């Protein structure tokens, strides 16, 4: 065994707990443990008004529901805006093409008139 292991044995020796430890354990052991509440009792405790957790939950919900609505509406508007923008771009492109074709025809007709 190395010197370090020797030192570890010294450093990690068993330790007596503070005075009166055993008496405290025995006292706790003698105290009858509270019976586990039935599932419906736990549920009834939760539902018994007014409970702080219910108040907190309703405050959080009353803030979250409108915030979620606003967020959803904004998101929908953004999507619709994007779609309208794309449709406008397509329309502009189509109109540009048509205009270009009309311009070509006018030019062709002008050339034919000069030849005649």
């Amino acid at each position: 065994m190395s010197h370090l292991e020797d030192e570890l044995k010294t450093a990690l020796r068993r330790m007596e707990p503070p005075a009166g430890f055993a008496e405290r354990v025995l006292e706790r052991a003698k105290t009858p443990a509270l019976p586990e509440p039935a599932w419906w009792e736990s549920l009834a405790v939760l539902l018994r008004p007014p409970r702080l957790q219910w108040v907190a939950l309703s405050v959080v919900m009353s803030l979250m529901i409108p915030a979620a609505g606003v967020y959803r509406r904004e998101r929908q508007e953004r999507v619709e805006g994007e779609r309208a923008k794309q449709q406008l771009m397509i329309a502009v492109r189509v109109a540009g093409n048509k205009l270009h074709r009309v311009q070509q025809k006018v030019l062709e007709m002008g050339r034919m008139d000069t030849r005649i």
Partner: protein
Amino acid sequence: MSVAGGTAIRIEEDPEPAAQGEIPAFADIVRGHQAMVFGLAYHFLHDRGLAEELAQEVFLELFRQFDRIESPAHLVFWLRKVASRRCIDQIRRRSFWPKLRLDEVPEPAMKTDGRDPMLSRALARLVASLPEKPRMVVILRYQEDLAPAEIAQVLDMPVATVKSHLQRSLDMLRDKLARTVGEIAI
């Protein structure tokens, strides 16, 4: 006399010590094993209050599950296993990392055997800074003097893992101790 888990437990001390192979009364068990359980908890948690609370909980769990104890040897195994598991759970549940305050380290009321108490304190602090599983392996090895195979049984891990935790922890401790305490013949 009290009843827990359907088995009658003698809470009060026995006027006569239990015969070999017989499980002693609960009070005798607490007094006989409190240094082991408290020591494991203290060396692991490095907090007297938490260690006492945890040690009490271990004995109360023993009180409730007394009918599962088959022999004195099984009792010791059970106490080590439950104390180790509760120590590791405690760290995980509370994300508790040892707050090493020098005033928390107990004064060496025990005999020092001519050894350096400063070195022992430094070592105890370094052990408390190891990760949870290697820490418990080291404590079981050097407080309880358990062989790797016995530690493997207590902690439900392969013997090879215990050996590797031990080896790595010793290397780490040797290295840290050399840096903390200085050049000591380790």
